[in-house]
């Protein structure tokens, strides 16, 4: 089989594994949606609040399905020796990782689509104002957070530490990056940190694409996410460990 066919086989295998793991499916899909519904119901019933929440939860979905899921799963596979076993077969490393990361990418795309659909059908937020920009930012965010997730897995010492390490990044990041409320309302110090990190910029871009007219500089947002993507790709490849 060609490397492309092998990547496809690996992708299909990963999809099968994903749906057999109910807790992964829950954390990837249901938890962000549950948060969306709860927060929309409890705090954000006004249209302008929903217009912050929908792009915010879409951005969080990208973070959860790529960064968190990949950092967690790669640590597990490395610790259990699955990566080492793969390394001993003729499956090319690139084909294996393409299938594996491709599966996480599909989860991210599905999540963004579901959040946008719920925003419209349940909460009456308009359909995306600029679908092309939405697709562009979603893909850029996927590349960025997938690469950072792989890179971050190199820092996690073993599978027992994986939940603590990933949550130590995930939770503070979603609170300062404008997922549930506008990041503009944060204290200056937290705002400065959020400005330097990619999630806020991804959400700014998604917000421009979904809602539009927020005044965020799309070019700057894309540039910051792209720089993080480049750094993530470099670190992911440079320090990749099979065992």
């Amino acid at each position, binding site marked *: 089989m060609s490397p492309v066919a092998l990547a496809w086989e690996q992708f299909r295998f990963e999809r099968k594994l994903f749906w057999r793991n109910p807790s992964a499916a829950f954390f990837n899909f249901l938890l962000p949606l549950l948060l969306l519904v709860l927060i929309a119901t409890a705090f954000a019933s006004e249209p302008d609040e929903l217009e912050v929440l929908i792009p915010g939860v879409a951005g969080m979905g990208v973070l959860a399905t790529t960064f968190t899921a990949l950092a967690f799963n790669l640590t597990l596979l490395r610790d259990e020796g699955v990566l080492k076993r793969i390394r*001993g077969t003729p499956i090319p490393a690139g084909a294996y990782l393409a299938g594996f990361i491709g599966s996480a990418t599909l989860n991210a795309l599905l999540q963004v689509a579901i959040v946008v659909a719920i925003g419209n059908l349940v909460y009456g937020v308009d359909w995306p104002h600029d679908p092309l920009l939405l697709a562009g930012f979603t893909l850029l965010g996927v590349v960025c957070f997938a690469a950072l997730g792989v890179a971050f897995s190199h820092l996690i010492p073993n599978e027992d530490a994986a939940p603590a390490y990933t949550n130590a990044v995930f939770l503070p990041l979603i609170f300062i990056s404008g997922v549930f409320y506008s990041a503009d309302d944060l204290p200056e110090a937290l705002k400065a940190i959020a400005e330097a990190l990619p999630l806020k910029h991804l959400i700014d871009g998604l917000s421009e694409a979904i809602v539009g007219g927020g005044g965020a500089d799309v070019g700057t947002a894309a540039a910051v996410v792209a720089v993080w993507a480049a750094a993530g790709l470099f670190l992911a490849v440079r320090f990749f460990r099979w065992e």
Partner: protein
Amino acid sequence: MPSPAIEVHDLRKDYGAVEAVRGVSFEVARGEVFGILGPNGAGKTTTVEILEGYRSRSAGDVRVLGHDPAERDRELQQRVGIVLQSCGFYPRVTVREAVEHFSKAYEHPRDTGETIELVGLREKADARTKDLSGGQRRRLDLALALVGDPELVFLDEPTTGFDPAARRTAWGVVRSMKELGKTVVLTTHYLEEAQALADRVAIVKEGRIVAEGPPDQLGPGSSRYRVSYLSQGSRVEHQTDDPTELLHRLTRDAIALGERLDGLEVTRPTLEDVYLELTAEVDAV
């Protein structure tokens, strides 16, 4: 005369100041079962992982089926099967799905069902890997290594932690690989395993080969026979390189004196004797 399956010349590996492998040379012929025997930390796994392409070497020449394994050539990987000392599975797939999935990496895979049958997992074919016992997992390891129908199979301590029955089953699988004409490189710290399976054995100690040969004619002292008998209730033992001459002298004297050599035994040192003799020096250093 086909070229050897494996050629290793003056292989060295150091991790910083620690020399794990210190100049190892050996050859493995095609179709041979070659055992690498030694205590933990002797350098067995390091040596095998260099041959498998997992580790780089510090010095020396290595050829595996004519390739340098450090280049991680896919063509070589198609022809080699690896059973690592410990490695995991995807927990939520069945045995059949795992074997089927790995078979896709190979150009000429063995049939999935046949592979499962070969390692004796037929009745567990639809069980998920997380529900397998330790011995069954090891057999799945073997199945995944054999599904590509490799010419050369590396087995790194394949039966560590097995109960005796599971060990016998695994030995049967190794013997069937030999019957199929595969070359097998086996590391173990079980003497009886090397004795039962290997055509030739290298005993490794502190990163060096201290003895090499067929298990029944191995080591220094290997030509020394032990001759013992009972004399007035206690056992008398002689060691000799020439048992014919010694036995002739003993029986002649006994007949002359009208005695019987009760409990007469002529034995050769077992692999275990050789192994203990060779590895005991480690403690003396």
